[in-house]
Each structure stands twice: as C-alpha cells, then as structure tokens.
C-alpha cells in the first residue's frame, strides 16, 4: 500500500483491537482493524449485525476506555499526529465534539432525557466555540432547521421523548455537526428515516464534506446508501475487515464470498424469491482458528478451516481476506 500523505489523511486507524466481557471471559470482537480516511472522503463501513462496526467507532471516539464490559487492547487511532488512545480524558474531551463527533446508533441512549434539545445542541457550541447562551440557542435552531425539523424555534424547547424515532436521529446529527467537526462518525444515522428525509440528510452531510473537507466514517447496512454517498467501503465480518476498496469496484467486483452474499441479498427483481446467507455469524469468543466465514461459505475448502487467513493488500488498493480469492470469480451488481 502506498504511504498516504498525512496532510490529506484525516484519520488513520492501525490494528485496533477491542475485547468485550462474556460469561467465559474476555473475547476479542474487533481484531486488527485498520482504516484510513482522507480529508473530504466518505468511508462506508458495512457488515452483519454484531460484526464490530459500532465498537470500532466507539473506540475511535475514545468512548470505551473506561467501560466495564469492553476494553481496547491494542492499536492506534491517529488524528493528524495525535494518537487519541494515548490522550488523557481531559485532552480527549477537547477533541470530542469539535475535531471528531459521532452520531450514535441509538439516539435515546445518547441524548440526555433531562435536557431540552436546544440545550444539548448548544452545549458543545458553548464549550468549544465559547459562544454565549443566546448565540448557542440561535445556532441550535438553525441546525434543527437544517436537519429538517419543522417549527424549530418552538420545538427546540422540547425534550427528546417528545420527538419521533427519526426526529431523534436528526437531532443527534445536529448535535454532531454543531461545531463543524473535521471527522464525523455516523453510526447508522438514517436507519429510522424514510427515503425522502434520508436523501435530505445525506445531502447535508455531503455538503459539509464539500464545503469544509469534513471526513466521514459512515456505518450503514444499506448498500444503496453506500453506493450513493461513499467513496470507499470496508466490509466487516465477525470482528475482522474482510474486504476494502473503492465503492464502485467492490460493488461491481466483490472478491470475498461474504461481500458477494451481501450484494446478492439486495432485492433485484420483485418476482425472484428473497435470498440470504444461511446460518449465523459466530458468537464472540467462539470463532474458529480458520476463516470465520467458512461455515457459511459455499466455496469453502478444507484448508479454509485450518489456517488463519491474513488480510492481503493488492496493488490496486483493494484488501481481501480470503484464501481462495485468486481462484474465485464472484458476481457483483451492476
């Protein structure tokens, strides 16, 4: 892989590992994950539910260092030259919300039920930008309007429970965008939104990317959204990166059987029966030593179960974790 110019790389994650507590002890659920996101780039993370996308995002944000049930066991998270994993809480807080901000997958667990929406959006504007209470409030109203909340001036005094599921998601986006962060991590930010509102949110994110060169990590299970707004994509399976590359190339020519399966699950013709990858992913702590997808893989050979498969980088910037990749010709979508 070419050494990327650090002036254009907004974030670089190297060999990140996260463990979670299970009844049988600690289990690794994010293993050696590496990612790089350029300034002005939108990088999409996809993968089955439970594959480690949110934990990766939380680790980057510095949010699992003090948790009882999860811990970062290795790796680096470089924002410019600073390794966020090495910062003290106090130094980290100076970055959170300003340099990097996150839209959480579950708005209700991250919005504070005891504060009005205006207070929550205004808080980081006051903390980071030193705005007055009144300025922060006006800016909060503007932001609510930008995320399509009607009657924002009045509704900014409401509490989170007074909003619908999709409206809460948009409030989260407003909180995250309040200080125009250099890096936005958006964890399933549009799952509760219908397509018209979703299109509006995607447009808002894209405009910030274009205007300010914001870098974005966009976690979604919607391949349509990946195709629409992302430049690159990284596919997760059972805690590992199994494929990565430019969006167009991955969709047209997947090189890992799991990616092929995900693409095949996209309904094509309404008359064809629904298709899915049989079986379930391994539970944390119950992964085999060989390829983790092998038990569900239609191309699997004996060797797949016995040898751990390294992530291989090819000359064209693709990364694939499949021992058979060179021999398979997989179907994408076009």
């Amino acid at each position, binding site marked *: 892989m070419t050494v990327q110019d650090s002036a254009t790389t907004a974030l670089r994650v190297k060999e990140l590992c996260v463990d979670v507590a*299970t*009844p049988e002890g600690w289990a690794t659920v994010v293993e050696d994950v590496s990612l790089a996101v350029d300034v002005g780039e939108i990088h999409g993370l*996809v*993968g*089955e*539910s*439970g594959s480690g996308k949110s934990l990766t995002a939380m680790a980057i944000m510095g949010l699992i260092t003090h948790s009882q049930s999860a811990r970062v066991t290795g790796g680096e998270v470089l924002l410019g030259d600073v390794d966020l994993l090495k910062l003290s809480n106090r130094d980290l807080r100076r970055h959170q919300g300003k340099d990097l901000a996150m839209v959480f*997958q*579950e708005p*209700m*667990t991250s919005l504070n039920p005891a504060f009005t929406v205006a207070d929550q959006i205004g808080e980081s504007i006051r903390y980071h930008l030193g705005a007055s209470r009144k300025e922060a409030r006006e800016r909060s109203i503007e932001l609510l309007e930008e995320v*399509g*909340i*009607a*009657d924002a001036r*009045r509704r900014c005094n409401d509490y989170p429970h*007074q*909003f*619908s*599921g*999709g*409206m809460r998601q*948009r409030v989260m986006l407003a909180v995250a965008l309040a200080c125009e962060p250099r890096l936005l991590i958006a964890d*399933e930010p549009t*799952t*509760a*939104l*219908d*397509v*018209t*509102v*979703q*299109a509006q949110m995607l447009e808002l994110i894209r405009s910030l990317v274009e205007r300010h060169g914001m870098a974005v990590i966009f976690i979604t*299970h*919607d*391949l*349509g*959204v990946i*195709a*629409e707004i992302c430049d690159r994509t990284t596919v997760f399976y059972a805690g590992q990166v199994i494929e990565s590359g430019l969006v167009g190339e991955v*969709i047209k020519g997947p090189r890992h059987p799991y990616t092929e*399966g*995900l*693409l095949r*699950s*996209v*309904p094509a013709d*309404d008359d064809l029966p*629904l*298709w*899915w*990858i049989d079986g*379930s*992913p391994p*539970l*944390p702590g119950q992964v085999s030593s060989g390829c983790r997808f092998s038990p569900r893989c239609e191309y699997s050979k004996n060797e797949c179960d016995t040898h751990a498969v390294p992530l291989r980088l090819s000359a064209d910037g693709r990364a694939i974790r499949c021992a058979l990749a060179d021999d398979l010709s997989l179907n994408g*979508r*076009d």
Partner: protein
Amino acid sequence: MTQVLEVSEMSVSFPRRSGLLGKSQPLRVVENVSFEVGKGEVVALVGESGSGKSTIARAVLRLLPIDNGRITLADVDITTLSQRALRPHRRNAQLVFQDPYSSLDPSMTAIEIVEEPLRGFAMSREERLRSAQELLASVGLAGVEGRYPYEFSGGQRQRIAIARALAPRPALIICDEPVSALDLSTQNQIISLLDSLRQSLGVSYLFISHDLSVVRRIADRVLVMYAGEIVEEGPTERVFRDPVHPYTLALLSAVPAVVGDRSKHAKRIVLEGDLPVPGAPPPGCRFHTRCPFAMDVCRSEVPAWTEFDHGVSGRCHLHTSGSTLGFSGLTQFAEDAMASTDRDRGQTSI
C-alpha cells in the same frame, strides 16, 4: 371474524405546554385515521418521519389515550374498556419494536423472555417452558435457550422478540420498523420468517416501515401517511405501480439504488417547501406546501377521500377537481411535468 383490527376515525393528541403561562394545549398528531387489517393479512403503514406511525401503533394498543374514534380488536370494541377489562384482550395484539437491543430485558435468558408473556395463562411452568422452547425453535433458535440477549446478534435478537410476540398466540402483531436495524441478508431472513409464520399460524401484521422495498415484499395492502393523515391506501402492487398521491410518488422516487438503476421512477422528486408542523397543518391539502404539482384549490380546500379503480383510495385534488390527469395517471403526468420544467430550466435532471 374477518377483520382482526378495525380502526375508525381515530385521532390522537399529545398535551403540550406552550407560551409563558405554560398553558397546556393539545397537539394533534394523528387525525381521523380509519383502516382495517384482515385475518392473515399484512398491512403496511408507511410515511415520513414524524408523520404519526408509531403513535398509531401505540394508540391502537391503548398505550396512549385517543381523542375520538373506535378501535375494534378481534371483534371486541376495546375503545373504552378499562385497563383491567382490557387485560384479557391485550394478548390478541403484540408489538415488536425496531430496536432489538433495548427491547429485550438484558437480565433474562432467551427462554425466560419468551416464557414471560405466558405467565398469566393457565399453564404449568413446565408447559410454559416447553411452549417457549417450541417457539424459539420455530424462529430458528433451538439450543440457545439459556443465553442472554447480549450474546446474540441483532438478527437473532429480533427473532427472540418475534418469538416473544407470538407466545400468547395473538391475532395481530404490530411490527414497528422490525428490520430497519439489520443488514440486508438478515432482513431477508426475518421477512421470510414473518411470512411463513403468517402462513402457518394465520397471524396478521400491521407492518410499520419506511423501507419501500421491504413493504413491497411483504405487504398485501399499504397505507401511506403524511402529517398525521392517511393520504393513500390500496393493494401494494397497485400503489407501487401507479400511486394516486404525489407524496407516494415522491417516496417511490427517492429510494437509493445500489446500482444506477431507478428505471421505474427514473427521476427523483426532491420535496422542497415548508415541512408540516405537527398539530398545525397547513390549510387545504396538508401536502400542498411541498407538492410540486399544487394548484390553487389545493391551498384552500381539503381534498375529499376518493375511491379509485383497483381498490385504491386517496385524497388528492389532481384527480378530482377538474382533473388534469386524464387517463394517463399520476406517474405519466409527473414525468411530463418534470420533463417540461427541465426544458424550461435547460437542464436534464431534477
């Protein structure tokens, strides 16, 4: 019993303090909705975020008070039953939530989660556990009874939630965005599970979703909501092929495609204009502030609920007041209209 659920002219408000005096003024977020769900039928409720879908789900289950209207569940009028009198009927309608993470009690094992709703029944503990075990097996989760929610993937958790909803043998399951948190492969697995349960057990679903490709797969009929009102209703096939309401058309046109094929609705209609304010809808047609085809009449007169061919009904002046649509229908009309604006602006896409 042919209808499992009948809702007629139901309105729902939330109390809301406003102004300096903090006077409470109700905010009506669901206005006069009527619909039915037949036995073994899947009815989808789609519509914009904040349009009132979850409110309808909760009101129908009497988890929220209603202003007026009638709710009949499995032939029993439950509108005014006391919570106590309601209890035996509650089991007839179960709810599955969007979020498989927070909707399951983290301190209970899978089998306890499924067994719990059976506790009010005249069954021994052994019978309840056996029944719960069978239910888990029927959703493809045999042999994992003693595990806790966090040990399962999102798709597996959603299957536990479905098994729990099925436990009291309800006539109706209301699914509020049951698959939107899941990846596509898992979504497909769950949808086909719901479909096979409908066939084997005859349960009906009220299926709330904003994902039209999912709705198209599973629903017999679809109800489209906008700003607290139902604006269109009909057989899924028909509504998707030739919607009568411009909002439905806009919804259909905005689905992001994985690959550049939006053939059926090649052009995306981007909705502009003021969003509806809950509780204070604009006069006339509620959609007129954002409708690309709004006429004068739309700004002043509420369009009447009208029945069209093929079992489709809806409210839109384009079809009724001195119809400009002729026989070509809304889809063709919209394409022509957009083509001519493109020519005027000298551009090719909207």
